[in-house]
């Protein structure tokens, strides 16, 4: 249990997707101008990552990994090079399905997601979650925890940045720093803060 919990914490803080691994920055910067949109993005990221990483684990182990087709008499078949296309397809389908389900059964949550859900199909961070899962050889419980942890870390970072940028709305910034420039500097400072988590270790 502690191993999964420490995996959650490391996915959320030590290997924070936008601040440490530079993943998902386009939407991170675009949707962090207001805390409300940042919050919606964070919720959507956590949901989609928490679903797609385990789902892609199933797809990878069942169909694509070396030796996955041993039951059909093809143990040497290695389709792992197709994982990129497979993962993208799964992510696109999941996002579409999630949107339809939410719209039908939980319209309030669907309204909270807003327009961000379809946007996540082409988010670097979502695909990266699945690619890291393959790269590090997680098993099923680990992939669930890793997906949720990464999404949670993304949500924390984007809401923090949204809160800071709102307070800068009336600030006297140099013209060249307005908007994108100051967002990068802020992200850098936040990243510096999160770098301290690299020293974080689970006490036994």
């Amino acid at each position, binding site marked *: 249990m502690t191993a999964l919990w420490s995996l959650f914490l490391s996915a959320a803080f030590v290997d924070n997707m936008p601040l440490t691994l*530079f*993943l998902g920055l*386009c939407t991170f910067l675009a949707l962090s101008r207001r805390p409300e949109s940042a919050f919606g993005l964070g919720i959507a990221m956590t949901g989609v990552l928490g679903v797609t990483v385990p789902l892609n684990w199933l797809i990878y182990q069942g169909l694509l990994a070396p030796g996955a087709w041993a039951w059909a008499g093809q143990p040497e078949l290695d389709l792992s090079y197709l994982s990129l296309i497979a993962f993208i397809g799964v992510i696109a389908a999941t996002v579409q399905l999630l949107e339809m389900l939410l719209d039908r059964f939980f319209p309030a949550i669907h309204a909270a997601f807003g327009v961000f859900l379809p946007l996540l199909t082409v988010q670097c961070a979502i695909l990266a979650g699945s*690619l890291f899962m393959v790269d590090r050889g997680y098993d099923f419980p680990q992939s669930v925890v890793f997906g949720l942890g990464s999404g949670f870390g993304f949500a924390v970072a984007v809401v923090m940045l949204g809160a800071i940028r709102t307070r800068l709305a009336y600030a006297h910034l140099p013209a*060249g720093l*307005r908007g994108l420039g100051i967002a990068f500097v802020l992200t850098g400072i936040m990243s510096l803060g999160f770098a301290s988590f690299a020293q974080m270790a689970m006490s036994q």
Partner: protein
Amino acid sequence: MAARVDFWATLTDPLIRQNPVTLQILGICSALAVTTSLATALTMSVSLTVVLTLSAVLISLIRRHIPDSIRLIVQIIIVASLVIVIDQILQAYLAEISRSLSIYVSLITTNCLVLGRTEAYARHHAPLPAAVDAIGNGLGYSLILLLIGGVRELFGRGALFGWPVMPLAEAGGWFTPLGLMLLAPSAFFLLGGLVWAIRSLWPDQTEAPEHPPLPRTEPAE
């Protein structure tokens, strides 16, 4: 018939005036992660430019036959297939660099720059202008990557492309490397500073303030 596309402007605009990273805010995701050294930055730049150009040409060739409802999936599948090929080539011929790039080459699939340009330009233009636009944006992206990668490697390791430029103190020289340059925050600061510099020199790229700033009040003496 559409007006003749100005090829030179299409090629050079994305270098500064319409730079994908600093103005269009595209392609940042994989841009910063690979800039710890010039070798990886260059590999990434070339890979992205190749994928961008080939996918722009391919999508431009079939642009009249893609149904509008599935165009995003079609574009993504094309880009993903190209990325798989590029990834295999890199793993075969540049194994060391491929290992240090890890998943970031695969992430070109969802790179906002590639999908952004195919969606905005290649879908509506003939293959040759689309290719020129793709090469131009690739060059603009590469410029930023190489600048940041160069600064980070120079001050973080005292080397460029692995060749020692400033001898390190441990090796008997005089240069103590700035460790921060090898960490994530430095890329953000450098890019922020670069954006600031570009927008100071070309003020038409600055963004309008969201709200008029509050009037300054002098402190009572």
